[in-house]
């Protein structure tokens, strides 16, 4: 029986807020404004993060960016090895991605497999001009040649550790914690 033990809180509400504000500025700076820009959050915790980024960008630039929701279940590469089929939810991208600069948003970057699936999923919606990646926590251990353009915090971890991002919209509290599995 595996147990999860909380090891440390690495980000609190304030740190998360600051990280997002910084990422929002970086996005605007890197893209020289907000023209042709759109945000797509990966279900589930990428979604509120994308919405928050859009809100912050509106505060600093006055522009309202389109925000989409991406469900990557159908693009997972582990479907045949899972004992149970994961539930599929709706992808809601109510704008054309064609020729847009898409900022893909997720909470944790780990092996890179989720992002790989998300890239395929976005490209199936149309051909964007470019895709960038924004991540709240990068914990390393990549299995694919993928890197983030915007990172809230780099956290070196061991494979036995689990990073849990908890957001108000979903979890009712706001923190990033490291958990460790013990036998």
């Amino acid at each position, binding site marked *: 029986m595996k147990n999860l033990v909380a090891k440390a809180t690495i980000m609190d509400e304030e740190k998360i807020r600051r990280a997002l504000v910084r990422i929002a500025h970086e996005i605007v700076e890197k893209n020289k404004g907000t023209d042709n820009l759109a945000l797509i959050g990966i279900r589930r915790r990428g979604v509120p993060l994308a919405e928050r980024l859009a809100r912050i960008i509106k505060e600093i630039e006055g522009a309202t960016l389109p925000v989409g929701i991406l469900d990557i279940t*159908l*693009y997972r590469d582990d479907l045949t090895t899972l004992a149970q*089929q994961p*539930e*599929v*939810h709706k992808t809601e991208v109510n704008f054309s991605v064609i020729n847009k600069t898409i900022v893909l948003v997720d909470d944790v970057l780990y092996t890179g497999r989720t992002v790989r699936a998300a890239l395929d999923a976005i490209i*199936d919606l149309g051909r964007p001009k470019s895709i960038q990646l924004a991540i709240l926590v990068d914990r390393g251990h990549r299995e694919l040649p993928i890197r983030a353009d915007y990172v809230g915090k780099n956290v070196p971890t061991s494979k036995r550790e689990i990073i849990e991002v908890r957001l108000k919209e979903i979890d009712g509290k706001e923190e990033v914690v490291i958990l460790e599995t013990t036998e």
Partner: protein
Amino acid sequence: MYQRKDLLGLKELTADEISLILDTAVPMKEIIQRDIKKVPTLRGKSMVTLFYEPSTRTKTSFEMAGKYLSADTSSLTVSASSVVKGESLIDTGRTIEVMGTNVIVIRHQAAGAPHLLAKNVKARVINAGDGMHEHPTQGLLDLFTMREKKGDLGNLTVAILGDIMHSRVARSNIWGLTKFGAKVHVVGPSTLIPKEIKQMGVKVFHSVEEAVKNVDVINVLRVQRERQKKGLIPSLKEYAKVFGLDKKRASLAKPDALIMHPGPMNRGVEIMPDVYECEQSVVDEQVTNGVAVRMAVLYLLMGGKGVYEATN
């Protein structure tokens, strides 16, 4: 979680299992509406449609569903005449299976044929209509359409109009709807409604006017010419007069009631042109939803680590 090996009928499913399929069909429908209608989910999986009865709609619908999910699809149509002298169903099923097939979609004129196949192959089996028994994916697409348009199925009253006795669509609809607490009226000539259908929890009518009064949905079934030869109805003309759904009869339902038909329609017999062309008619959407629901079923049966892999 959908943990069954096969989809043979709605009778044996729980409301939760049906809900899961319908919920899964929502994102599937979104895929159908995209420019690029393909996701890689079932890459490397294969599906065979094994049809002992001619059907262009259901077969095409399953094949499209499989292709949208990137499964490899092949089809095998067996004419009814070759069944008697030809290979047995079990042997045909095993042959298809050892070619590496993950799912067999079967349509058969004999009730229970999918059950026989399912017991004898490790591949997943989907019933695409067996005799007068069930047509679960049609039932599911009807439920999906009603839920999408009307919300909670438990609040609905649905009238099913036509040849109830011979209809697998009616049976699958009745099982599905009653599991959610919907009220079901069945209406048709007394020669085409088995007495015992009441035990399935439906109300029986022989007057269309009474049956459709204030209902949320009218689901019209196809009537076949051969019923006349068997002496079950005097003529299609008389059927159309007494049981055909025309504008006047349809207007007795709720103003925004849905008009449904599993197709193919006998225009002018069970349904009149002014009804199937009206705004309330969702006949075309049923067809789209059919693909979405079948994608959901294929995903749920083949997406996970199936029995087939586990036992090989």
